[in-house]
Structures are given as structure tokens and as C-alpha cells.
């Protein structure tokens, strides 16, 4: 009983350049393996191999994209099956790729932005440069590129896989790469802790994804996307809801959404290019990809979509609130990412009215947030890895390229008219209002409020970093009397060129992607027709005006708070309760600690006690009954066992003899 298929049409075989799709995964994977295995021998050229493999993957991706554009939209979904990965009766899992507009969009984002960030890293991770207080050397740069390549390979698998299990392989694969790269700086215990935390919170989400896969297979007997999407209508409604909620749990883990958001800010322990690529532009958006990819499932259940939207709204608000309180430049950007992904999750939670808008904002965000992070890295590069914005100020004169590129990214994220964010974020807000009802009003209102907060924290960041007093002039690195003085300087070309390219993206991506609905039309074969909503109380223009006005207000308040008044180098204390709460991440970590971490440790210690005293004691006691006392048991020599073996043998012979006697009697 084939059901109505709004989004997925027939799946065709690949032809021409698309049959090279396996290279997309194979090139970065091979590069990673070479860099890991070759060891020090690859130190001199390893980083260029890393850049080259991603660049080559980008070229192949672009060629496949162009080829796909030449096809009729109905034929743009194609599959290439490479081999049978897990051959078991009733569950034959394919190792194959699904080339469709959605996956190709991500391929271009991952290899394009990824390639730029690889290039930037050649300079950023160069020997004798420092980052996080640890001098880089050739070996650590090679290790870095190996892990970054591993990430690209896993992320491509995540978006290209043609079944749920391959998705899961990519899903945990990017988690591994993220774990390795967050913990990259081996001197810092905090980096190791942050890495472990990220992996664990991701695994909580992974349990959700895994259970969703189990449910789908139980209901349909297949894990291939094509079959699942075609027959999803056969699954009972309650099960569908469960599947969507479990998938959402997975999305929350990977994308740092409430209640699993606490790992993402800590992930800033990793080198800054990692923050840009993995923890801003690509990996953390996998949750958005997941919901969009599963649109045939989410289309069926309104409750499931509502849950997604609620999570998005909660997250976009808490991210924006906490972002206002931090002084650490990377943490502000991290919470900004949490908040912006909240917008995307909200968008895909709107269903057919929002899937494409979520992806649209995801792409625009990929450009401007990657650019912002690279800019922050450039500032840290210039300032002895300082991240405290209270120790910055007036850097615009010393690093003009960084200031301009960062400034463009800033204008894009706050939704300055006609830059990227203006087109993409406002579209989400308008569509949210367009839903009508209480959800439309509440969610839309919160989204507008958060847009104002976004403008506030971003303006505060820019003013404290690039403008105002040069507060660093009278300070020394590490606050020690013999620490070095700060000598801000512009970064080398290998770093600024990627920043410039991304700045162009920040300016133009929104306009180009929405020109004549380009992206929406391109994604239509995967995501279905974008439902235009006219039901809302406010017209698109009105929403745009309100959002811009609220954003302007936020920026103005930031100017009044930090732009016109001197910024104290010491963080002011004490502060009001809301600021205190925001500085402590709205107590997310404290709650995790009290409710999960400490009871868990107590439980496992208690179990060790029980295992040693109780379970083992019982057994030792039994043994003592057999062999005397448990103290003697310890001292017993082999003779004891010999006698046991003999008695066993004797016993066996007796029993057998008795048996034979019975038989022959």
C-alpha cells in the first residue's frame, strides 16, 4: 500500500560523475588514515595532504551538484550502493549513499567551509604558534589534521548514508572526532574533561537515535531510507510519535539543544578552527539535518513537530540569555551557536512550512558563524590566546582585516537589513508567527525577543573587542608581573583569506540563496513544497520591521552599557540574580552534577562495596563451608585442588558406574 509521497520521488541509479560519490568519503578518510599511520614521517607535508583531500572532495561534490542541477527535479534523488555492510537475514544493511538535494547541500557546506577551515588551520596550527598556552609542533599539527580529516569523512557519511545505520555510523563518528579535537590540548585537564563530557552527553542522545532505529526496524523490517519513507504510513500513530521523540533526543545531543546543551560551551576547549567547523558550522547542525531528513516521518505527527519546536524555542532563548553574561569571547559565540541552532530546530519543527527555512538558516549560519569563530581565533592568535574580552579593546586599528570580516559576520548574525541573517532568521520568525494560534504568538514572540538579545550580546562582544579603550596596554599575559606584553598584530594571509571568503558568504549567502526562492526550490524534491503561511496576524513585512527594530534596540542598549562607559577589567561582583544565573549557565551544570553525576558515582561506589562484601562474601562463605574457613581458602595450596580434582574424578566414575549398573541390571 504505497502512501502519498510528498517529498521523495522515485530513487534512480547514479550516472557519470556521481558514481565517484564514494570518493567524497574515501578521500578524507584515506588522508586521515595516512596521517595517523605514517606518524612523524608525514610531519612535513601532512597538513597539505589534509587540505588537498578536502579540496578534492569539494571539487567532486561541486561536479556532482552541477550534474544534478541538469537533471529534472523528479530525478534528482539517486542512490549508489557500494557493498553489503552487515549481511544478516532480515536485516541486510547496505553501505550506500543517497545523493539528493539535501545531502548534496550538506556535502558542499562540509567540504567548502571545511576546506577553508583546513586552510586556515595550516597557519593557525603552525609550529611555534601557540593556542591555549601549548606550543604547537609539527607532530601536533599532523595529529590535528588527521583528526580534522576524520571528522570530514564521518560527517560526509552522516549526510550521505542511505540508511539509518550508516547515519548512526556517521553520527557517532563525528562524535569521536569532536571528542578527539576538544581534548586536543593534552596539557589542559579541563580539555580532557570537556571532551569526555561532550562524548557522554552525545551518547545520551545516541541512545535515542538507536532506539528510534530499533522501533523503525521492528515496525517495517528495514532500515533503508527509501523503504522506510515509502511505508512509514503503515506505522501506528503512537509509535510514530515515539520515533519522532527519540530522534529528537538524538538531535538534542548532537546539536546542543535543551536539555543536553551543557557540553557545547565546554567544547570551546578545542582549538578555535575546531570550534568554527565542528562546533558551529557543521556537526552541531546535524540535529537540524536529522529532523529535515526524516521529514516524511515528522510530516505525519503534529505532536512530534510541536515537541521539536518547543525544544527549539527554549534553547534559542536560554542560549541568547547566557550569551549576554559571558566575558569569554569563544563562550559567547558558543552560546550564540546554541541559540542560533535553536532557531533552526524551531524552523524544522514547523514542518512543511519550515524545513527548508531551517536548512537556509543553517547554511547562512555556517558562513557567518564560521567566519566569526575564525575572527575570534585571529584575535586570540594576536593576543597570546587571551579569551577574556575585558582584556581586549581597541583592536580595530591593529587588525583591520579581522575587524572588517568579523564586523560583516556580526551584521549578518544580528539580521542587519539585506545581509544573510536578515533573510534567513526573519524568514523563520515570520513563518513561526504564520503558524497562528497560541504557538505562533508565543514562539514568534520569544524568537523576536531572542533576536534583540542576539543583537545585544553580539554588539557587546564587538565593542569590547575591537573598539574603545586599549585595556590590554597596561596588562601582562597571565596577569603575572613577568608575563609578556600584548602585541596585537594582523594574522597571516593563509588565515585571513578564508576569513575574507567567509565574510563574502556572510554578506551574500542570504540574498543569493533566497533569490527567487533558489534554495527552497532546489530542496523541494527532498523536503517537499514549502508551505507559505498567510494565517498569521502579521505580514512578512511587519515581522521584518518589528525584528529589525527589536534588534536595533538590543544593539543600542549594548552601546549604552559597554560602548559609552569604560569597561572594568575585573568582572564586576556582586551582580543581580539574573546575571549570576546566566553566568552559571542557568545552573545547567549544577543540576547535572547534583541529579546525575554525584548520585551515579555514589551508586557505583556502593555497588563495588556490595560486590566485594555481599556477592563475593556469599560465595567465599559457601566455599568456606566446603573447604574449611575462608582464611584457609586463601592459604590453600595446589594439594587442595588436587584432592578436589581427584574427588571430582572419583565422583564422576561413581556416578557413571551407578548408571551402567542400572542399565545392565
Amino acid at each position, binding site marked *: 500500500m504505497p502512501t502519498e509521497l510528498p517529498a521523495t520521488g522515485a530513487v534512480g541509479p547514479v550516472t557519470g560523475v556521481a558514481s565517484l560519490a564514494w570518493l567524497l568519503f574515501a578521500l578524507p578518510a584515506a588522508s586521515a588514515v595516512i596521517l595517523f599511520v605514517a606518524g612523524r614521517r608525514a610531519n612535513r607535508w601532512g597538513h597539505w595532504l589534509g587540505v588537498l583531500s578536502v579540496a578534492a572532495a569539494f571539487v567532486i561534490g561541486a561536479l556532482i551538484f552541477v550534474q544534478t542541477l541538469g537533471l529534472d527535479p523528479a530525478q534528482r534523488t539517486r542512490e549508489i550502493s557500494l557493498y553489503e*555492510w552487515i549481511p544478516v537475514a*532480515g536485516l541486510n544493511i547496505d553501505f550506500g549513499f543517497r545523493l539528493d538535494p539535501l545531502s548534496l547541500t550538506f556535502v558542499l557546506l562540509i567540504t567548502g567551509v571545511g576546506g577553508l577551515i583546513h586552510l586556515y588551520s595550516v597557519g593557525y596550527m603552525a609550529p611555534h604558534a601557540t593556542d591555549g598556552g601549548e606550543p604547537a609542533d609539527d607532530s601536533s599539527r599532523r595529529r590535528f589534521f588527521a583528526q580534522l580529516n576524520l571528522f570530514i569523512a564521518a560527517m560526509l557519511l552522516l549526510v550521505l548514508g542511505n540508511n539509518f545505520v550508516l547515519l548512526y555510523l556517521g553520527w557517532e563518528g563525528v562524535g569521536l572526532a569532536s571528542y578527539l579535537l576538544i581534548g586536543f590540548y593534552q596539557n589542559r585537564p579541563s580539555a*580532557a574533561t570537556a571532551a569526555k563530557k561532550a562524548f*557522554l552527553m552525545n551518547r545520551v542522545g545516541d541512545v535515542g537515535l538507536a532506539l528510534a532505529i530499533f522501533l523503525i526496524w521492528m515496525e517495517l*523490517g528495514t532500515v533503508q531510507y527509501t523503504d522506510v519513507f515509502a511505508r512509514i504510513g503503515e506505522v501506528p500513530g503512537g509509535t510514530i510519535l515515539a520515533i519522532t521523540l527519540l530522534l529528537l533526543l538524538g538531535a538534542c545531543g548532537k546539536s546542543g539543544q535543551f536539555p543536553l546543551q551543557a557540553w557545547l560551551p565546554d567544547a570551546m576547549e578545542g582549538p578555535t578552527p575546531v570550534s568554527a567547523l565542528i562546533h558551529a558550522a557543521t556537526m552541531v547542525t546535524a540535529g537540524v539535518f536529522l529532523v529535515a531528513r526524516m521529514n516524511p516521518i515528522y510530516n505525519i505527527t503534529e505532536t512530534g513537530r510541536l515537541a521539536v519546536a518547543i525544544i527549539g524555542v527554549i534553547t534559542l532563548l536560554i542560549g541568547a540569555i547566557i550569551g549576554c553574561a559571558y566575558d569569554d569571547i569563544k563562550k559567547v559565540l558558543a552560546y550564540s551557536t546554541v541559540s542560533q541552532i535553536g532557531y533552526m530546530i524551531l524552523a524544522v519543527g514547523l514542518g512543511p512550512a519550515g524545513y527548508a527555512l531551517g536548512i537556509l538558516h543553517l547554511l547562512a549560519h555556517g558562513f557567518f558563524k564560521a567566519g566569526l569563530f575564525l575572527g575570534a581565533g585571529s584575535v586570540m592568535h594576536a593576543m597570546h590566546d587571551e579569551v577574556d574580552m575585558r582584556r581586549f579593546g581597541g583592536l580595530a586599528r591593529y587588525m583591520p582585516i579581522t575587524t572588517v570580516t568579523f564586523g560583516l559576520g556580526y551584521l549578518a548574525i544580528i539580521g542587519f537589513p539585506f545581509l544573510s541573517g536578515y533573510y534567513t532568521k526573519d524568514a523563520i520568525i515570520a513563518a513561526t508567527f504564520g503558524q497562528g494560534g497560541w504557538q505562533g504568538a508565543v514562539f514568534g514572540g520569544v524568537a523576536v525577543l531572542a533576536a534583540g538579545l542576539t543583537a545585544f550580546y553580539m554588539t557587546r562582544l564587538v565593542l569590547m573587542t575591537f573598539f574603545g579603550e586599549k585595556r590590554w596596554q597596561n596588562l601582562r599575559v597571565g596577569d603575572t608581573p613577568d608575563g609578556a606584553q600584548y602585541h596585537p598584530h594582523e594574522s597571516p594571509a593563509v588565515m585571513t583569506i578564508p576569513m575574507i571568503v567567509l565574510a563574502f558568504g556572510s554578506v551574500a549567502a542570504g540574498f543569493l540563496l533566497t533569490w527567487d526562492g533558489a534554495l527552497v526550490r532546489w530542496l523541494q524534491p527532498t523536503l517537499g513544497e514549502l508551505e507559505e503561511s498567510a494565517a498569521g496576524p502579521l505580514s512578512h513585512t511587519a515581522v521584518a520591521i518589528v525584528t529589525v527594530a527589536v534588534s536595533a534596540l538590543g544593539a543600542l542598549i549594548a552601546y549604552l552599557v559597554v560602548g559609552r562607559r569604560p569597561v572594568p577589567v575585573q568582572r564586576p561582583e556582586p551582580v543581580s540574580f539574573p546575571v549570576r544565573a546566566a553566568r552559571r549557565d542557568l545552573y545547567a551544570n549544577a543540576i547535572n552534577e547534583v541529579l546525575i553525576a554525584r548520585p551515579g558515582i555514589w551508586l557505583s561506589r556502593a*555497588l563495588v562495596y556490595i560486590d566485594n562484601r555481599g556477592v*563475593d562474601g556469599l560465595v567465599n562463605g559457601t566455599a568456606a563451608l566446603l573447604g574449611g574457613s575462608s582464611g584457609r581458602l586463601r592459604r590453600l595450596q595446589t594439594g587442595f585442588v588436587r584432592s578436589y580434582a581427584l574427588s571430582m574424578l572419583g*565422583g564422576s566414575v561413581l556416578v557413571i558406574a551407578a548408571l551402567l549398573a542400572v542399565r545392565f541390571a
Partner: protein
Amino acid sequence: MNTGGSVLLLVLLLVPLVGSLAVAPLRNDDRAAKRVAFGIAIIELTLAGVAWAMYSVADAAAGTRFQLEFAYPWIPAFGTSFALGVDGIALVMIALTALLVPIVMGFSWEEKLPEGRSAASFFALLLATEGLLIGVFAATDVFLFYVFFEAMLVPMYFLIGRFGGPRRQYAAVKFFLYSLLGGLVMLASVIGLFVVSGERLGEGTFTWAELQRIAASVPESTQIWLFLGFFLAFAIKAPLVPFHTWLPDAGAEAPIGVGVLLVGVLDKVGTFGFLRYCLPLFPAASRTLAPLVLVLAVIGVLYGALLAVAQSDLKRFVSYTSVAHFGYIALGIFAFSTQAFAGSVLYMVNHGLTTGMLFIVVGMLIARGGSRLIADYGGVAKLAPLLAGTFLLAGLASLALPGTNSFVSEFLVLIGSFPREPVYTILATVGIIFAALYILWVYQRTMQGPVRGTAVLAALGGPGDGPGTMLDPAVAVKRRGVGFPDLSKREIAVLTPLIVLIVGLGFFPGPVLDVINPSVAATMSEVGLTDPVGGVSR
């Protein structure tokens, strides 16, 4: 169905046993003893490869239960014969055994043995263990199986009790008593089977195929008693909670190489026994008692993981991770589906590789620091990046990260168990979070961060970390300034085959699954159930 056969299995059985007798007398020449033993192990591995090549998947799929059969009347009056044969499940276990033994030997090449012990007897005992393990997997006669099952205790007992750590006597005796207890109960059931078969067939038999044929006709109450006898022995061996407490002691006190064989292969005899004896010979009892086993399995998954989190001793830590892993295997076996069966059998192979590698890498760490305590290490990644990297890889395989071999098996177990046993499966799936915790936490404490820890600092000749936490404070003094080198060429050679298999089977598990599939399908029909999903049953 004696196809008149093949002596290959007999040769596989005899080569290590005879080899063991040949190696044992070389007490005065350790080098020669090691070389001869290693050569024999390589021959055995080659023979296992030949057996793998000769095994026909097509025949198995067509319904041939055992291949490469060999039979010789042993005690005809008693209905028992010296009968050997393999199905896909036994074949992969034999291959795993033959693969791990030379790796263990390579690892133990420079092992410091306790005072007065010769390498010759150590390597001879390894070979003896190998031969008896092959016998356990290849036996197709229940009495013969029982003989091998008990006999393999003996070399293992001496390996632990003579070559192990400070409390080796205690650990060895505990291991022996547990196993003996299980064995005796099983003996009662073995004899019971004989009696029952005598009632059904007019003449008692121990031949597995005959017993399986009459299995369905045995009343359930009888089945339950016989099942419990076998089950207890296997649950101790596997080990399932609450019969597990011998394992941490044995695992901690046994030399690393012996630990690899113990946890990697010998314990699998328990789960192998579930699949070969409990399910096909007592199908009704298996179905009835499955909830009991499932509860123990899931408790094992969570309890083992939580205990692993809080361990302070590296070797006990690895042992407790295995308790959790055996919970997954048992879950897959008693959830009765083709997919979960295949997952469990593959898990048995994969666990041998990954936990074997984890044990070996832990052993390499201990060899450098002289301490088993986690707290004595820190920041090793800076000193020995290859050691740290291989430790992490083994750990990631242990937490079943996709891309490693263990993922395929753990995923198959869980997805295959889910339709019939959703509640137990959900609980077991939560266990993957704990797995990530115990692995990454130990990795963080021993490998990441600044160089620290009594064992590491002492080895480097530094001032030490304040009061030592080492089990034996004298060790810290003895080891002062010996250095903390990265992996040697020999160590890399020992680890390379494991790394290749762990990653290779993560992406290409097909060749192993192909061998396993027909046999688990046969087991499925012997249990008398059909798959809840996929509907594939012969």
C-alpha cells in the same frame, strides 16, 4: 552423518596438545621453548585457516549441521564416541582461539615470570589450553564436550596459580572451585541426558545430533532440570551476575596473556554452551526460563558497567567491562532472533579481539609502570603517544563505537532483541552510556593531562608524587629511572593484527557473518521459534 571424513579437526586438536608435550621439557632453553611454541601456534593458525577455507557456507545453508566431521567409537557400551565436527559458530571460535594464542605468545615473549618458573612450562601450558579449547568447540558428543570442558580447567589453573600476581593462589583456587562446582552440576545433567535418551531411543546416547532430534519430545519439567544443570556451569563460565565474582580476581591475578585467553576465549565457552547445548537440547526450557536469564543479562550489563566505573585496578577494570559485555551476549542469545543470535556469536569473536587488545595494552602500560593502579598513572599520552593511541582504539572498540568491529555485533544484539524484548533492550541500550563513561574516564586519568602519577614519575626518575599509592611501595623504588618508552617493534607487531581486524571487521564483517548465519538459522529452528521481524526462518 559421518562423511567418512576429515582428520583436520583431529589434527587441529592434537597439534597443540602434542606440541605442549614437546615444549614442556625445554626447561633449560627458554629461547628454544618460546620459538618452538610460537612455531606450533603459527602452524595451528594456518590449520585453522585451512579449516575455514574448507568449511562450506553453501552446505551449511543447505542444512548440513556439522562439517569436517570425525568420529571414532570411544566407549560404545556407554553410547559415547570421540566425535568432532564444526558448525559456523564453532568454526569462528576455533579461528579466534588459533589467532589469539600466537598474539598472546608474542605479548608474553619478554614477560617476567615469577621466581623459579620457566618459560617452557608457561608456553607449554598455553598450548595445552589451546588444544583443549579446540576440543571444547569441536566436540559433537556431549560427554566428550564435558571431558574437555573440565580438562581445560587444569592448565588454566596452573597458568593463574603459578604465573600470576601476588594473590595468584587465592585467585586460582577461587577460579577452580567455581568452575568445578559448575562442572559437577553439569555432569549430573549430562548423565540425566543419557538416561532420558535411553528412555526415548531404547539405548542411551551422548551424540549431540541424536539428542537434538529427541529434544522436542522431552517433557518440559525434565528439560528444565537438565537445562539448569548446563546453565549453571555456563553462567559461571560466561560469567553472568551473580556468578561473576571469580572473574575480577582471576583477571587481576592472571598474567596478562593468560587473562586474554581467559576472557577472550575460555569464558566464551559459557555463551557457546548456551547456543550449542541449552537452546537446541532443551528448547522448551529455554523458552520458559528465558526471562530469568534476560534479567541476569541486563543486570550484568548495567551492574558490570557501574562496577567498572569505580574500579581502581586496571586489570579488574577490564574484567568488569567484560561482565557487562557478557550481559549483551546473553541478552542476544535469550532474545531468540536470527539477528540477535548472529550478533551474539559475532560479539563472542569481537569481544575476544577488543578485550584481548585492551588487556594487552593495559599489560604494556603495567609493564612500564610496575603498578596496576589507575591512580599511579597520568599523562602517558605525552610520553608514549602510540601506547595511548592504541589504548584509546581498544577502548573505543570496547564501547562499541561504530567503525569498530564491536559496533556491528552490539548493534545486531540490540536491534535483534528489541522486537521480542523491548524493555530489556532499552535498559541494555542505556548501558552504552556507562560504557562510554568507564572507558573515557580511565583514558582521561591514565593518558590525558600533564605527566603525573607515582608509577610514571618513578619510571622517569623524578621525585615521585608524594606518598605512593602503588600496591607494593618497593616497586616504585626498584623502577626509579627505568624510563617510560613508547611501543617497541615487538609490541607494535603484536597489536597490528588486532588493530587491522578491529577496524577491518568494523567495515567488512561480511566474511565472518556469512559463516555464522546458516548456523544461527539452524539454532533458531532448533529452538522452535520464528523471527519476530524479518520472518526468515528455515
